[in-house]
């Protein structure tokens, strides 16, 4: 009811809304903390919460009385903790970049994975795998860590710039063109991936399959440290563009009249999102639907104001991916489910439900 009223009369009870936004963000933060703790505690290897505390305290030189085995310590520190942190970062950045893309294109379907950015990034990384093997250049180990994120970033960036060029006519983004161009780029990227797969060896295909399904299973401290700055930059910087995105909602020339340097802002957003997508694709493979669903859900609750939407999407994205990964690694233990499949399986029906509900709501009013 409140939601409907707030939508019909923007400006109605502004203060109450502000408070509610604050409450929602606080609740999400609390949920995130809870999920982080739960994720650290739960896993295929049995480690009690007390033992977790004890293991982490030991790292800081504190000796607590709860005993643990070396095995539990190695599992928690070497495997589970980097994985939880990676899920946190990737989820947050997928959420926030989804929200920023939707804001930039003024279209709720502009999710990086739907309009081809993710697949373009994956294509570029695939090229590193397949062509790199054919040309047989071996990078030094330090560069090897960066080769994937860098290639994926370049791929996503090219796609994003191309898309923007194609879809923007005289400063106005044509929505239909945007979506169609996005779908075309997506198809093109997938076709090239398929072409490369055709020439890939058996071993390469295996690592490519692993990647296409998406997984956080490869998380370790080295990959985490490599991609953390690339992921943290968009998480921190995108919310600072919230006011500009709000202005862009009015239209580009209107935003320009309001004093925003729209071209610079657009460039910055595209760059940051490409960076985020590239880093994510490189370490986790294709994880879809988080960037699409999260901003939608949040918009239903907090409205279209990007000042709330962007940080909220980061929080909710992190929550969703943490929860999904928790299920992925505990449901069929000692094996695990591919997380990309899991997010799509839960995300798609939920998204459909939201769409149907929205349609009904529109039919009534």
């Amino acid at each position, binding site marked *: 009811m409140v939601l409907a009223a707030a939508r019909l009369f923007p400006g109605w009870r502004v203060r109450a809304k502000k408070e509610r936004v604050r409450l929602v963000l606080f609740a999400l933060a609390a949920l995130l903390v809870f999920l982080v703790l739960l994720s650290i505690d739960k*896993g*295929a*290897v*049995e480690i009690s919460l007390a033992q977790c505390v004890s293991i982490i305290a030991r790292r800081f030189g504190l000796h607590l009385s709860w005993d643990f085995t*070396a*095995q539990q310590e*190695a*599992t928690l520190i*070497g*495997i*589970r903790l980097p994985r939880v942190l990676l899920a946190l970062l990737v989820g947050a950045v997928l959420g926030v970049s989804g929200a920023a893309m939707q804001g930039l294109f003024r279209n709720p379907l502009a999710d990086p994975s739907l309009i081809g950015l993710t697949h373009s990034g994956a294509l570029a990384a695939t090229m590193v795998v397949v062509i790199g093997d054919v040309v047989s250049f071996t990078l030094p180990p330090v560069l090897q860590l960066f080769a994937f994120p860098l290639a994926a970033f370049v791929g996503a960036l090219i796609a994003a710039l191309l898309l923007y060029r194609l879809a923007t006519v005289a400063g106005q983004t044509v929505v239909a063109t945007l979506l169609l161009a996005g779908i075309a780029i997506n198809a093109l990227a997938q076709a090239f991936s398929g072409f490369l797969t*055709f020439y*890939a*060896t*058996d*071993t390469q*295909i*295996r*690592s490519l*399959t*692993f990647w296409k*399904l998406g*997984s956080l*299973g*490869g*998380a*370790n401290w*080295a*990959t985490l440290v490599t991609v953390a700055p690339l992921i943290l930059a968009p998480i921190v910087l995108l919310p600072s563009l919230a006011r500009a995105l709000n202005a862009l909602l009015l239209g580009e020339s209107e935003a320009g009249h309001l004093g925003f340097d729209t071209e610079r802002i657009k460039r910055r957003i595209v760059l940051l999102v490409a960076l985020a997508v590239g880093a994510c694709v490189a370490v986790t493979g294709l994880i879809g639907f988080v960037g699409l669903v999260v901003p939608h859900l949040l918009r239903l609750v907090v409205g279209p104001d990007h000042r709330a939407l962007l940080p909220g999407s980061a929080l909710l994205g992190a929550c969703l991916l943490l929860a999904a990964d928790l299920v992925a*690694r505990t449901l*069929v*233990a*000692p*094996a*695990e489910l*591919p997380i990309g499949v899991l997010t799509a399986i839960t995300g798609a029906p939920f998204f459909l439900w939201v769409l149907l509900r929205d349609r009904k709501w529109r039919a009534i009013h």
Partner: protein
Amino acid sequence: MTSLSPLLLMRAMTHKTKSKFIAFVSLISFSAVCLLVFNACQSTNDGTKTNQVSVTDAAGKGLAIKDSSRIVCVGTANTETVYALGAGARLVGVDNSSGEYLKESAALPKVGPRTALSAEGILSLKPTLVILNTDAAPPQIFDQLKTSGIPTLALPADYTIETVKTKVRTIARALGLEAKGEEISNSIDREISGVAELLKGAETKLKVLFVGRGPNMPNATMSGSGTTIDEMIRLAGGTNPMADFKGFREMTDEAVVAAQPEIILMTEKSFERSGGTNGVIKFPGVALTPAGKNRRIVAVSDMYFQGFGPGVGRAVRELALKFHPELNAAGKSEAINAANGERR
């Protein structure tokens, strides 16, 4: 005096509390005895906790293994080797395809397909040794397992007879069963050289096309070079007409007709799936090849192509005899010779 104090205590008790106290004391002592017996059993069970052994992995690095009593094994050929060494009881987990192709391991916990392993999942089975091939994924799994302190034996993922023998010997050494490993490795040698000897009697090298078809797959694929199948065909005295591409490709009629295979090789499962000989002949181009005209389709156990295992010698022999049935009589005397050699 202190040792008497329980007795003094008992004297001071009423009848009811006394019986409770006796029950309590007996329970404690019973569990203590149980614990002792359990510990004793454990230490006697540690026959596998022999001296530390050192093996060389695929990267040529040494790996120290103290205890091989709980093994997680990834890769069908590796699992098959563990069983062949008689150490199947030490397995605590295998990958999905091991579970699918080796009936003995069907009931063991599965750690997933070898392309999507979970380090924590593997660790939850409390292994003391993990055996896998270098092509396992995610690639970080090796580091993850190593940092957790579990000896992780990464074996080469290429498929030649030399590699199989090295792998069998390495696994045997890791398990403290070197003699048995040597025996298996020697028997592979004997079988392979026996087949080579046998093939001297064959007049021609036949063109053998391998055709595979997954469950519910509309199209069949054929094997190029660089696969287990390609190597097996070569060892069994055939040639692979599709050797100019690597890995697997979808079957196309023109390529099949151009190749003119004399035999179509399949696994039993995909042969059945394809509807037997009549079904296979309907595959693209097959009807126009000598294999199709003469209805020469050879189907062998699926297990033979799951990476080379300890049974590779027998598999190659079976293939050779199926490719050249005329050698069968000679083959029997050869087998007798080989058996005699073994006895000597």
